[in-house]
């Protein structure tokens, strides 16, 4: 019997901090097993052996912020059978989507002495704004357990088991006492699970790095924040961070008049 060819994996980078693709290298216990199960065909951060597409699975990190990248993602999609975005940048535009609420020309002048050397788009947009995406993995950064689950599911030809509920369920599971009832504003009730509710276990409120859960009630949450004494500015800033361009968080941030 001849062995089936291993699925070909590619990892792509757009505007990002590299943390989500590092998550793959951070799977220290599973890395060599993963490398045995797939052919790492294109992963420049880890290997200088780069082979041409097509690829069975593309993991895409980062958001689209340049005209060149808007073209490049079309080519990546064409070369990829299954495309998974990894992380808040690729899934929601990332922290760099704060430019979407500002004048990018002014941003360029604030950072660079020679604005004429810088070419960038006025917005930072998720991959799904440009091409069809087969699966989106949330998080800033992604959870490596979820990454391994997605890789295993794809190798096994099954649907990945990724929960869509809120961080609250994860706090209950690990017996973390609710920080909101102790007076600390928390984005957990509106935030997609996946991190394991880390922040409340460190006695601070969730800051929403996994983005909105399915159908979040952000208005009710913002009202609870007001009752805890949060200012409108604080509410706007909280919804406007690593997932500021995700629709539910964007709309809630715009509802507070700033």
């Amino acid at each position, binding site marked *: 019997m001849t062995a089936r060819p291993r699925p070909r994996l590619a990892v792509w*980078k*757009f*505007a*990002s*901090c*590299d*943390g*989500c693709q*590092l*998550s793959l*290298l*951070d799977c*220290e*216990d599973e*890395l*060599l097993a993963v*490398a045995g199960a797939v052919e*790492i065909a294109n*992963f*420049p*951060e*880890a*290997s*200088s*052996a*780069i082979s041409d597409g097509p690829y069975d699975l593309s993991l895409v990190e980062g958001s689209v*912020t*340049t005209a060149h*990248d808007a073209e490049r993602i079309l080519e990546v999609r064409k070369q990829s059978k299954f495309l998974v975005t990894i992380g808040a940048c690729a899934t929601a535009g*990332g*922290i*760099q989507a*704060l*430019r979407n609420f*500002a004048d*990018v020309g*002014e*941003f*360029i002048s*604030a*950072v*660079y*002495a*020679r604005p004429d*050397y*810088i070419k*960038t788009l006025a917005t*930072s947009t998720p991959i799904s704004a440009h091409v069809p995406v087969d699966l989106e993995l949330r998080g*800033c*950064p992604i959870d490596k357990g979820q990454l391994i689950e997605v890789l295993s599911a794809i190798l096994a030809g099954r649907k990945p088991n990724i929960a869509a509920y809120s961080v609250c369920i994860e706090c209950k599971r690990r017996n973390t006492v609710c920080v909101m009832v102790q007076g600390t504003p928390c984005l957990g009730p509106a935030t997609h699970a996946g991190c394991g509710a*880390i*922040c409340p*276990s*460190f*006695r*601070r409120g969730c*800051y929403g790095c996994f983005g909105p859960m399915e159908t979040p009630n952000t208005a009710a949450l913002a009202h609870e924040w007001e009752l805890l004494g949060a200012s409108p500015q604080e509410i706007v*800033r909280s919804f406007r*961070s*690593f997932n500021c361009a995700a629709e539910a968080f964007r709309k809630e941030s715009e509802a507070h008049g700033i």
Partner: protein
Amino acid sequence: MASKTIKVDYLARVEGEGALDLEFTDGRVTSARLKIFEPPRFFEAFLRGRSYTELPDIVARICGICPIAYQMGSVHAAEQAFGVSVDGQLRALRRLIYCGEWISSHTLHVAMLHAPDFLGFPDAIQMARDHGDLVRNALTLKKAGNELMRVLGGREIHPVSVKAGGFHRVPTRAELAPMTETLKRARDIAVELVRWTAGLPFPNFEQDYEFVALRHRDEYPLNEGRLVSNRGINIEIADYDSEFEERHVEHSTALHSVVKQRGAYQVGPLARYALNSDRLPQHIQGLAAEAGLGPVCRNPFKSIIVRAVETAYACEEALRIIGEYEPPAAAAVAFTPREGTGFGCTEAPRGICWHRYEFEADGTIRRARIVPPTSQNQPCIESDLAAVAGGMVDRPDDEIRHRCEQAIRNYDPCISCSTHFLKLSIRRS
């Protein structure tokens, strides 16, 4: 005159996006430019109007490989501006989480990104076929660093515990205790890694660098110190602008930093080691000597040995801190923000990472400036490339290309940090 072009469109095994242009005229290198085209993300612009409370979480996102470096620089700056002093066990815990980042980041580079260059493999996974124990041990070492960050910060990438004044929560002794065995094993692996790197084949190449690093009264530098160089710089971190300046060059979305009086300088392991090797414990100095390092190493290809030495040191230092740990009464020092300017400068794995912030009275950020290590090393990398390529103009293009890529990786460039990725083209005319 023969003319020729060599291209490397996407430099691999670096973090971020860049390219290289080499031009030869009459058998001489006339231009060596490291082009950085990582798309800018404008952190310094969107930090304006954010609160100091959000600062460590936001700046962590500049770099997924060294988030602690950014968090530390930012909280030190806020504390300086607000007149807060963090010492005792809280200070020790900051050093401990930073040791975790050094172990993890250095091991990633030494074993997985840089070592394959010396042995002719495209990556660590292929290398594992012939050097299985080495790669597996390195993964164990890297994992120890990550575990340390996870215990103290909840996760290894963008940990959540660091804040101005201290931490959101500090560990119990019982939470840290299991790290002792893990770190002892990690230290033994790191010591073996030093010996292994010392046996790699190194090109005979030295440059007379200006090294810049922090220097502390009695520690090998991580979080604090004065900015010093081997050519006489010895200043407070707040006086950075008196000796250094950033220039914006057309081929890069990273700003180039230079010493105003002299030009290119180097930060990172070689610089730290050259300026602080006397601050390493005796037996770590002995380990470095056994690996063939003098008190100063000017061969950038040997930075792999220095990284391994620093990894062994970080394991030891972590063990020392854990051994002496008593949980502090409070996880953070209480303070009230005030209007002011603060500076932070710490030793990221790749070298000094400098921050300056102006705050409003309520702690809102009015202005932010961050100078990451790779943008400081960029002119130095270009100077190495010119020298490396200049010494091998008659060699085949593939050989020049390979050696130049290796010369870039000597710096463990983190291009995402400096904003910024690599494409190599060589033009001969």
